[in-house]
């Protein structure tokens, strides 16, 4: 009797606990129902950018969201490189191509309600020109002055005609922000794009709302939340639970789960969602043995790219092994195939050449990333391949924030060898001043000269010829070792549509999205 009574009490405790849980739980369905309204959507990304300053923070997790949503460039370019008005409503150039005049659309306002002035444009361009990110400085290589010649007019003077300057005004380097944002941009982002940042909680989310000052067409979705879910499997659960509507970029670390757990059937799968990118090995070319083409060529010959791609568990078509040298650019890159592969995988030959050069016993100092699961897994596979070949790898992983602030930001490279992901361009390797080298350390004067020739070319033929020669030089010196081309994999709610290829860099433009019935 007593025993039964006690059992009843235990069951009572359990029931009371469950009832307490349920009483909170049945309060209403999880946020999913609200998020499925026509005017809001929630995305998630596995990385928190840490700060919002696009001038100093080159993290993909930031440049996915701010350009194209919060900021507008000086000039817009479509995917066929055709320019159209953005912050500048018109522009003209002098006959010798050395002076550019931009008429600013003063009807445009920043999200804080202030009108865009020529002085804001000058301030913005100066920020990128003198900022720490080498890639953003590129378009300003030939710029000698940027001046506000009228309240609504900016004049840029070049030392030589430059194709990359005008095109660059449609990229990160041309984004316009108010001069009053100086010193506040780590936590505040003010632009003239269709959205404004209503809230940024580090480690949690960025909340975007429609910018009432925006002069363009009002987007259908006016309320966007980007959540930072660092645990990638948890982001899949959130998608399944309806708490997020899309994962515009998924980590390769969870691709095998995406396939095996049926996410590609239950959700809209989108290849090339945002940042089609290469994986490649970068070498510190100021240090031995990484500055030796023999060493770099041998490394390239050892790596099994097919096994590398297979190890990442990519869905069909999402990743393609790369065995051609050079950098993928729009006009000069030729996709590699087994038939056209110029890097023959030959471990024995590679080891023999390393031995002959006395480089086979040297430990390779490899720096990876702790908080980019995709590249961490890729680094696991790649370093293991090199170890299997008998090489010694000392691997050290550091967080992206540290990597970015010390490597991208024009500081001396901190690695011997490093695995990179991203859409590198040929101009990234230009090195006018060898004492100010950044993470791309290929300071070849011949290469820099070729890129300058391309930039100043008056005909398309001359432009392409110079770029092709530059790419050949990268190949000859084995500057980078391409591993794969990734098209990216995004997952979306089946009724959420509208993704379009990025035009500024890798941005996910919210204004294009809409819900379907």
């Amino acid at each position, binding site marked *: 009797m007593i025993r039964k009574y*006690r059992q009843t*009490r*235990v069951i009572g*405790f359990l029931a009371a*606990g469950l009832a307490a*849980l*349920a009483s*909170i*739980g*049945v*309060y209403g*369905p*999880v*946020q*999913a129902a609200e998020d499925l309204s026509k005017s809001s959507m929630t995305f998630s990304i596995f990385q928190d950018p*840490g*700060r919002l*300053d696009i001038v*100093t923070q080159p993290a993909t997790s930031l440049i996915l969201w701010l350009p194209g949503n919060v900021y507008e460039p000086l000039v817009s370019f479509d995917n066929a490189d055709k320019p159209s008005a953005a912050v500048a409503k018109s522009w003209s150039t002098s006959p010798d191509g050395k002076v550019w005049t931009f008429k600013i659309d003063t009807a445009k306002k920043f999200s804080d309600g202030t009108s865009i002035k020529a002085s804001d444009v000058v301030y913005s361009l100066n920020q990128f020109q003198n900022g720490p990110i080498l890639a953003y400085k590129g378009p300003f290589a030939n710029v000698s002055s940027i001046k506000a010649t009228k309240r609504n007019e900016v004049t840029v003077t070049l030392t030589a005609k430059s194709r990359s300057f005008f095109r660059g005004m449609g990229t990160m380097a041309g984004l316009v922000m108010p001069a009053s944002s100086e010193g506040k941009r*780590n*936590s505040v982002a003010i632009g003239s794009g269709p959205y404004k940042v209503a809230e940024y*909680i*580090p*480690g*949690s*989310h960025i909340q975007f709302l429609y910018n009432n000052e925006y002069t363009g067409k009002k987007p259908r979705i006016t309320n966007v939340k980007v*959540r*930072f*879910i*660092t*645990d990638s*499997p*948890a982001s899949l*659960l*959130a998608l*399944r*639970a*309806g*708490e997020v509507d899309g994962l515009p970029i998924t980590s390769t670390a969870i691709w095998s789960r995406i396939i095996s757990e049926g996410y590609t059937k239950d959700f809209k799968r989108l290849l090339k969602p945002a940042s089609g990118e290469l994986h490649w090995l970068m070498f510190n070319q100021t240090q031995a043995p990484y500055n030796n083409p023999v060493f770099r060529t041998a490394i390239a010959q050892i790596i099994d790219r097919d096994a590398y791609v297979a190890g990442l568990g990519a869905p069909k078509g999402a990743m393609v092994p790369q065995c051609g040298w050079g950098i993928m650019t729009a006009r000069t890159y030729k996709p590699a195939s087994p038939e056209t592969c110029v890097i023959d995988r030959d471990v024995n030959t590679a080891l023999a050449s390393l031995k002959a050069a006395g480089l086979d016993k040297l430990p390779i100092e490899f720096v990876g990333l*702790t*908080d980019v699961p995709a590249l961490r897994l890729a680094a696991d596979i790649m370093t293991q391949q090199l170890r299997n070949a008998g090489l010694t790898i000392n691997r050290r992983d*550091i*967080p992206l*924030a*540290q990597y970015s*602030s*010390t490597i991208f930001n024009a*500081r*001396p*490279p*901190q690695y011997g060898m490093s695995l990179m992901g991203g859409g590198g361009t040929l101009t990234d390797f230009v090195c006018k001043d060898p004492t100010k080298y950044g993470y791309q350390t290929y300071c070849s004067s011949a290469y820099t000269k070729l890129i300058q020739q391309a930039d100043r070319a008056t005909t398309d033929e001359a432009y392409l010829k110079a770029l092709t020669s530059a790419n050949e030089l990268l190949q000859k010196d084995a500057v980078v070792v391409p591993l794969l081309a990734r098209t990216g994999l995004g997952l979306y709610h089946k009724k959420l549509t509208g993704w379009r290829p990025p035009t500024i860099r890798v941005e996910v433009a919210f204004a294009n999205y809409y819900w379907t019935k």
Partner: protein
Amino acid sequence: MTIFLVRRFTFFVLSILATSGLIFLLVRLLGGSPASVLLGEFSTPEDVLALEKQLGLHQPLIVQYVEWMTVLIRGDFGVSFYSGIELRMLLKSALPVSISLSVGALLVGLAIGVPFGIASALRSFQGKGSLVDFISQIGIALPVFWSGAVLSIIFGVSLGWFPTGGWVPWSDAPATTLRHLVLPSVTLGIGIGSVLARFVRTAIVEVMRQDFVRTGRAFGMSVQQSLLVVGLRNAALPVVTVLGNIVSHLVGGTVLTETLFSMPGLSRMILGAVVGRDIFVVQNLVMLLIVYVLVVNLIVDISYYILDKRLRI
């Protein structure tokens, strides 16, 4: 009572001074200049010198220490080297998350540990084994990342009762915040409750064997009566100590939970700073945690003083 409080508070202040000095010296003596740690091993001497000057590291150690303590007391925790955001701002959003999670987990732990511990003790007192012991063993052994994932799948994905992650500030929608807290609190609370159940059980069994309980039983009190009248109060003493330890260690335990449930709390912030070698942020956050632990210990000691009349003789 006053003498006890003065003595205890003096010890509290001395402990803060000693630990702060130790942290301050460790940061400066281990691994060379903090500026070179921040800039990385290949930074130029010029860069390091410039940063040292910017951070005031060129001043004598005692001056640096006094300045550090002064700004800390003023509540100025400095700026993160990597994010450039004021630590005070980051703490303002992270602290409520971690405190809520800790309190939630503690409540769940108490809700599990106390009744289950008592039930287990009663059965043990009767010389019988208990299912509760077995369950608490499992509870202790369950890894947080596993139990969290399972709870998310069942209550978040399948039943849709609770969010699988994220955080909504209390000021925005308290009911939604509460719902966001349930799964992480239960995840973390299962372990706490399991540990607590075993301590409660042991403490009660120990007390119930004491002479004064036996005397009470001899005067006709039932097991339940003797437990309620004298057992629980006396068993509370060791349990309060354990509870103090659990609360002190809770911040460390929340790292996985906060990551698993995407909660922007203090633990994730500390982890990020440690991984990012943002050493001044680490230094200030560790100091904050030490103050937290010392405060918890102070509260435990005062509670002990109130609960145990023998200490007042």
